[in-house]
């Protein structure tokens, strides 16, 4: 059920209770969690925080704590599955779900008592009407079978015939209704996408209660920027949300213009900026930043020698000497830095990079500390997915959470260093994949698999890093290939997840289009393929949890919009088989100005078609080669 008044129906209920917070592992969830924690601290609410990375952990956490808590708040997890069925809670447990994943499961929408959704109603939700999906169990056995005595046989027969006709009519109607229901549900659930950031929803709650601070506003900004960095929302939605936040920023930060009464330099200020899209450029050198940002690297094709020359031309066009550009940004000459943004934008337009500037915010406190929102996003992501294990599982999460507070600058700087390493590793991997033609275009999708010996491959065993890598790879591939058909294909990426256990993590990315609506259809495809693979080899009912099979195991995790699947190596082969054999058909959707939209009509073929056998053999050989 949707909560219309966040304050009365959510906050005032939990302010007197002990609450369990279940927070997903992405930066948007971290920011929402920080805002909620700040509100809880003001009101002395007792809470327990449990980070969850997937549904397996969600279930375990729930089972552990269900006896002690009646109120659960789920942040960025749980909206797109049937919560009650998976978790099987008691009657009086109440779930508050603040999630940006869409589509929201219909059971969650129409359950009045136990599941409350903290979602803004103006998000385009398109939930199907209640009557189309649910129907009371009508007693089909209503027809009395009792023998009524004292009735003539002819009358009985007539009544019986009537009853039979009625029953068949009802059954036919029911079948039609069920067919329509399946179709409606299929259309509703076939694409996965993202709605408003949970951090913004939480900030709204704080604002309604007049407890919003500049700090919370900053976290809301970081949450929104995370959605943009990870390509989860459309450009239009991003710009709209920036407009909303911009109003709040002016409200909180207008005192800085007033010379007389300006705030202490230690106070935090947020400023709106039409800043460059280069990742971490203020904490790095401009040259490194240009090389390691996917937008510039893909447009200039920096993996080739020609690309490097173009980069030199680009810098020369702006009049920036190489020596200056290669040193730390803060040490660049002031005269060069003054008009940097305008200069770069002009030159970028000449080189085909029209969107080099983006609307964003930056934070400023003390004399030394100035960060842009995307810097914080990269730093926090790399802290959270740090592969160096220090202590129990949740330390990385807690460290990332801490780095969002202004007092923990050392953690933030550590995060920035890790982010630089990660971006460099991504660019090198992308360059090597493209140069060695590791991206294979076969059939309905592009496929790339990282071998175990690849440098830095351990960095990509985590979902968000792998997603970033795949997106950059797809962008670069689209810029590098000449094949028009390939440019519109989606990408499926595989990387080794755990060498000992022999699992592989897979990610599916929708195709690159100019005005994509960021809807991902891989969820259903992977589910279907995993189901079939499962049924052929393991003969187990498909469960979204770990299924041990000898010493190898596999698990499915529906994380962000990209679906992540971990498989044992030998099953990858069969998986590709099934994925390939699912019939994909493309339909030109005239309403959307002729943009091709991939529709998935799932019809499994009972065998592999002869015509494709040759192509597929080549694919399998390739996979086998990669697996060795």
């Amino acid at each position, binding site marked *: 059920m949707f909560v219309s008044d966040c304050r009365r129906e959510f906050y005032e209920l939990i302010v007197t209770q002990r609450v369990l917070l279940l927070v997903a592992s992405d930066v948007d969830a971290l920011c929402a969690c920080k805002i909620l924690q700040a509100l809880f*601290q003001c*009101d002395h609410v007792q809470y327990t925080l449990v980070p969850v990375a997937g549904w397996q952990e969600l279930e375990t956490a729930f089972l552990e704590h269900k006896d002690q808590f009646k109120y659960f708040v789920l942040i960025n997890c749980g909206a797109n599955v049937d919560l009650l069925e998976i978790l099987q809670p008691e009657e009086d447990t109440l779930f508050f779900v603040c999630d940006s994943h869409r589509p929201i499961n219909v059971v969650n929408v129409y359950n009045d008592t136990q599941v409350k959704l903290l979602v803004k109603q103006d998000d385009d939700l398109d939930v199907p009407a209640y009557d189309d999906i649910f129907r009371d169990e009508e007693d089909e056995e209503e027809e009395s079978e009792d023998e009524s005595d004292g009735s003539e046989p002819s009358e009985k027969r007539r009544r019986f015939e009537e009853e039979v006709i009625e029953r068949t009519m009802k059954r036919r109607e029911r079948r039609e209704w069920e067919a329509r229901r399946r179709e409606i549900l299929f259309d509703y659930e076939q694409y996965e996408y993202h709605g408003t950031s949970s951090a913004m929803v939480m900030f709204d709650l704080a604002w309604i209660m007049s*407890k919003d601070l500049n700090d919370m506003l900053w976290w809301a900004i970081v949450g929104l920027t995370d959605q943009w960095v990870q390509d989860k929302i459309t450009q239009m939605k991003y710009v709209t949300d920036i407009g909303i936040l911009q109003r709040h920023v002016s409200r909180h930060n207008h005192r800085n213009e007033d010379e007389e*009464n*300006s*705030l*202490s*330099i*230690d106070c935090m200020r947020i400023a709106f900026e039409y800043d460059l899209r280069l990742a971490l450029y203020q904490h790095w050198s401009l040259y490194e930043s240009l090389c390691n940002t996917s937008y510039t690297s893909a447009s200039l094709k920096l993996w080739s020698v020609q690309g490097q020359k173009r980069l030199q031309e680009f810098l020369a066009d702006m009049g920036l000497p190489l020596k200056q550009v290669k040193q730390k940004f803060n040490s660049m000459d002031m005269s060069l830095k003054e008009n940097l943004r305008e200069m770069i934008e002009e030159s970028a337009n000449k080189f085909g990079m029209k969107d080099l500037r983006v609307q964003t915010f930056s934070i400023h406190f003390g004399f030394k500390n100035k960060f842009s929102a995307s810097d914080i996003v990269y730093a926090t992501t790399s802290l959270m997915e740090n592969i160096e294990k220090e202590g129990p599982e949740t330390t990385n999460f807690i460290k990332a959470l801490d780095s969002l507070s202004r007092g923990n600058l050392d953690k933030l700087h550590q995060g920035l260093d890790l982010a630089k390493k990660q971006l460099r590793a991504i660019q090198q991997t992308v360059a090597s994949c493209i140069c060695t033609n590791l991206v294979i275009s076969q059939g309905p999708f592009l496929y790339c698999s990282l071998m175990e010996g690849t440098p830095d491959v351990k960095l990509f065993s985590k979902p968000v890093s792998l997603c970033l890598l795949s997106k950059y790879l797809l962008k670069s591939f689209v810029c590098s290939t000449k094949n028009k058909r390939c440019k519109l294909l989606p990408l499926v990426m595989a990387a080794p997840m755990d060498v000992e256990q022999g699992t592989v993590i897979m990610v599916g990315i929708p195709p690159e289009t100019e005005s994509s609506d960021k809807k991902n259809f891989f969820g259903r495809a992977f589910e279907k393929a995993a189901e079939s693979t499962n049924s052929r080899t393991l003969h187990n009912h498909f469960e979204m949890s770990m299924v041990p099979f000898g010493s190898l195991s596999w698990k499915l995790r529906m994380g962000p919009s990209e679906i992540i699947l971990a498989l044992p190596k030998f099953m990858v082969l069969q998986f590709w088989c099934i994925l390939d054999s699912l019939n994909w058909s493309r339909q030109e959707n005239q309403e959307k100005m002729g943009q091709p939209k991939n529709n998935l009509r799932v019809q499994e073929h009972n065998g592999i078609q002869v015509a494709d056998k040759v192509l597929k053999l080549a694919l399998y050989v390739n996979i086998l080669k990669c697996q060795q």
Partner: protein
Amino acid sequence: MEPAEVEFLAEKELVTIVPNFSLDRIHLIGGDLGPFNPGLPVEVPVWLAINLKQRQKCRLIPPEWMDVGKLEEIRDQERKEDTFTPMPSPYYMELTKLLLNYASDNIPRADEIRTLVKDTWDTRMAKLRLSADSFVRQQEVHAKLDNLTLMEINTTGTFLTQALDHMYKLRTNLQPGESSHSQDF
């Protein structure tokens, strides 16, 4: 005494706040507080003011003396005189630190205030050192210093008294005492 203890004593000073909640009068051992009404200023001890400010339940109003003009005058006065001038509050240093740490957004021109108070403090500490130095040199027995605050006394107190004790011991050992016998083997 530890500086933390002095700060603890300083937190009993009263300061004005403007709360955004309402609460009836509360009766504590040290006295009554309240009643609290949103938008109406009320005087509370600093410890409560800081706590409420951290929970975003009030807005602090800086004390009258925490103003750039007044502090400049006090600093200049201090620099002119040889002795200590009276300070606006017996806990001026602690109050400045607490209020500027937790409520700097409610205090206009906070950076300048911090600098001015620090200047005044430095001047006073210099005078105190000079005075202690001359006291020890001239082996005075009795000194009187007016207008010192507890924090300033505390910085030199322990050290000065222990140093004087040592000096006394050393001095008594120098003079050949009548009762000092040396032991014969």
